[in-house]
């Protein structure tokens, strides 16, 4: 049965996300999708959804949601206090919500993005093969608003008998593995060493397109204009200011700033959990 959910408070930014729309970058369409894909997949598995089903991605301050029907949900991703009718509920496991239940997520304590999967998956009109909200391009459903109701699709398949999924707790100062290039040669000899040796702070001017970092200026060797080129997810782009930007799910498909290094695929989900004010480090692999 489909579940109707009323948005009492939308939180700071709650969007519908699935695994995005890969295969369209040559048309200027970002992949988009969950910024922390592993957490989205886990949330879906816990409630018996296909791992790429649409779920809610909550940013920093979580939403308050009134469930109008019995539902099965799972919350994954950032560490956050979640309450069902005032009672604390566990993360990383399936939680039964009775009809009329109020689910409230507080502000994340570690990490930035929580995922709420509801059995059946969130209903939304697919756009270019995905239900993801791409905030850069304005594709997919708009962020949640107070008073709005959302619904789930009809559930398919069995509910798996998983208890609490073992999930490594987020760390205070993550260490992200990076691969040098493609434009490391546009920087001074010591720039890569400086990238790896420094402590970086996440700027408040970060979003689903990119994480802006504050730290030492990465010195450039070449100052001529780079022709626009394709950008990979996790690319560390360095604009003229010398302050790097890690490109996330909604990043522009091409760009004209040189990329000194790219975050290794295994650490892209961790990059999607970086929160403003947090410190991080890089390791060259």
């Amino acid at each position, binding site marked *: 049965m489909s579940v109707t959910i009323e948005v009492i408070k939308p939180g700071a930014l709650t969007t519908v996300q699935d695994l995005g729309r*890969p*295969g*369209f*970058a*040559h*048309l*200027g*369409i970002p*992949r988009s999708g969950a910024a922390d894909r592993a957490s989205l997949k886990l949330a879906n598995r816990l409630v018996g959804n296909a791992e790429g089903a649409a779920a809610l991605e909550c940013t920093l301050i979580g939403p308050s949601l009134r469930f109008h029907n019995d539902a099965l949900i799972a919350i994954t991703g950032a560490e956050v206090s979640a309450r069902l009718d005032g009672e604390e509920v566990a993360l990383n496991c399936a939680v039964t919500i009775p009809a009329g239940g109020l689910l409230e997520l507080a502000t994340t304590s570690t990490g930035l993005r929580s995922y709420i999967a509801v059995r059946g998956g969130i209903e939304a009109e697919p*756009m*270019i093969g995905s239900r993801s909200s791409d905030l*850069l*391009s*304005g*594709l997919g459903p708009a962020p949640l608003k107070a008073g709005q109701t959302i619904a789930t699709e009809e559930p398919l398949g069995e509910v798996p008998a998983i208890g609490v999924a073992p999930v490594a707790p987020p760390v205070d100062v993550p260490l992200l593995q*990076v*691969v*040098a*290039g*493609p*434009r490391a040669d546009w920087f001074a000899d010591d720039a890569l060493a400086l990238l790896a040796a420094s402590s970086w702070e996440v700027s408040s001017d970060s979003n689903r397109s990119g994480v802006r970092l504050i730290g030492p200026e990465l010195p450039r060797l070449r100052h001529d204009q780079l*022709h*626009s*080129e*394709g*950008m*990979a*997810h*996790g*690319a560390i782009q360095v604009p003229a200011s010398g302050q790097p930007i890690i490109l996330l799910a909604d990043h*522009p*498909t*091409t*760009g004209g700033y040189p*990329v000194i290094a*790219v*975050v*290794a*695929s295994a650490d892209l989900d961790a990059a999607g959990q970086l929160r403003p004010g947090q410190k991080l480090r890089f390791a060259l*692999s």
Partner: protein
Amino acid sequence: MSSPPTIRPAGNHSVLIELEGNDAVQRLAAGLEARRGSELEEIVPGHETLLLVWREGAPPIGAIEQLISGAELTAEASAQPAAIELRVRYDGPDLAAVAESCGFSPEELATRHLACRYRVGFIGFSPGFAYLLGGDPALQPPRLAEPRTRVPAGALAIAGPYSAVYPRSSPGGWNLIGSCDEPTFDPAQNPPALLTAGMAVRLVAK
């Protein structure tokens, strides 16, 4: 073929292939198109580069070289790119200033701009935003010092060697010289973008 392309690592799931000019980019992209699929997820042309993104894991460098040489053999077949006409008006808010800075009257600018044979070099910046190459070397104004917060959909714009039609309303720093009513991006269509890299584009006066 000329000198072998430079293969630059772009993380452990993609590589950036540097080529000599956009023609070589189009040839290699066309030659690789049949390989796009579940493993090779994205083939993204740039001005002088092609980014290849794999689903996961490290693409072995040997395999990339094989992929490229295989693509070169088949590229001959991809001879004639599709051609498209866009009907435009020269009525943009920056037309007079751009014409003056290039030493022409607005009418001369329009005539020169219409006379060029354009080709889509690559798409980027926003969905369906096609960078048109092949413009008149005498018409290369720099980007605006202060980008506009809102450029209307359909604005015909130039900056440096490129011309473009803004597919949708967005912020933008290019010089707006005219407009085009033809929709160039519609997410409900398949493909959603009217223009793709390699396509020949003729501008005709409306």
